[in-house]
């Protein structure tokens, strides 16, 4: 278990699936997620393999109650470039806008640097997803690349920020 201030990041388990089904049934959760298709319980990837450098797929628990509230992880970790792509989704609406997402992302990045020995964490945020952009900037992420027209969401082409974080920049 990776402990934040108010969240615990842990390996996923089968019993997370009913929670995941509710998270991904909420349009607020899925609006920016690609691909855009409805997800059933089976779509929540619970691997038989242990969490490893190549695949960090976690469930986020509210530390106070032990309730699963979302999902987080690091994808496409490259051992040579020592870089990975982070994602965080707080799926339980009751826990949004209260700092759980920031605590999750900060805890995840700290783990990436301090335990996985990564040198950079990247994050893709839709330019129109103001909350995701502001949250990652508050933590020290820098808007490095604006990928023009990289996303098709709600019937329009939208830009995507590629955000980057180096270890010394994490706040």
């Amino acid at each position, binding site marked *: 278990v990776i402990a934040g201030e108010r969240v615990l990041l842990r390996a996923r388990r089968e019993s997370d699936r009913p929670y995941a089904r509710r998270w991904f049934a909420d349009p607020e959760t899925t609006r920016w997620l*690609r*691909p*855009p298709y409805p997800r059933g319980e089976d779509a929540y990837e619970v691997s038989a393999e242990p969490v490893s450098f190549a695949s960090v797929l976690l469930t986020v628990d509210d530390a106070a109650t032990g309730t699963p509230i979302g999902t987080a992880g690091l994808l496409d970790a490259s051992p*040579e*470039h*020592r*870089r990975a792509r982070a994602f965080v989704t707080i799926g339980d609406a009751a826990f949004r806008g209260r700092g759980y997402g920031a605590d999750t992302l900060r805890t995840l990045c700290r783990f990436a640097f301090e335990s996985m020995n990564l*040198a*950079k964490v*990247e994050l893709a945020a839709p330019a129109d997803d103001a909350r995701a952009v502001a949250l990652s900037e508050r933590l020290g992420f*820098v*808007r*490095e*690349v*604006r*990928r*023009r*027209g*990289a*996303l*098709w969401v709600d019937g329009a*082409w939208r830009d995507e920020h*590629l955000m*980057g974080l*180096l270890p010394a920049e994490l706040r």
Partner: protein
Amino acid sequence: MAPGDAEAQHRWLNDPAVARYPIARAAVAGRLAGAGTMSFANPRFSLESDGTLVGYAVLRDVTPESRHAELDLLVDAAGLVTEAARAVCAFAFGTVGLHRVSVWVRASETALLAAYEAAGFVREGVAKDRLYRGGRWHDCVLLGRLVTDAP
């Protein structure tokens, strides 16, 4: 791409400036044999100039919803990058139906950056320390070209 391209590809891919790990001729040949037919998800070309094989181009990670692809382009002869990139984009936009093609270039490779810009690509930003090679970190520039950009 065809199995006959293995010899040249093997030579290029063993240039330390191009690839990190040495690769055996058999591995290159095996990859070419398994490349399959061209399709929406798998557009790949060998590039010829005056009948000589000069490089290859692969459009990676093509997704139908975002109609985007990332370009891997290797050209043996200097001065052909612009023309090759233009030709690949014409196919990507006109035949595959893509909306966007992007390519990563090291920030220090100014001639290469200029070659892509001459082909209509736009610099979209610099990612710091994105690549580790030759004992140090390199910044990388992402260049993107949209079907709606000026040719």
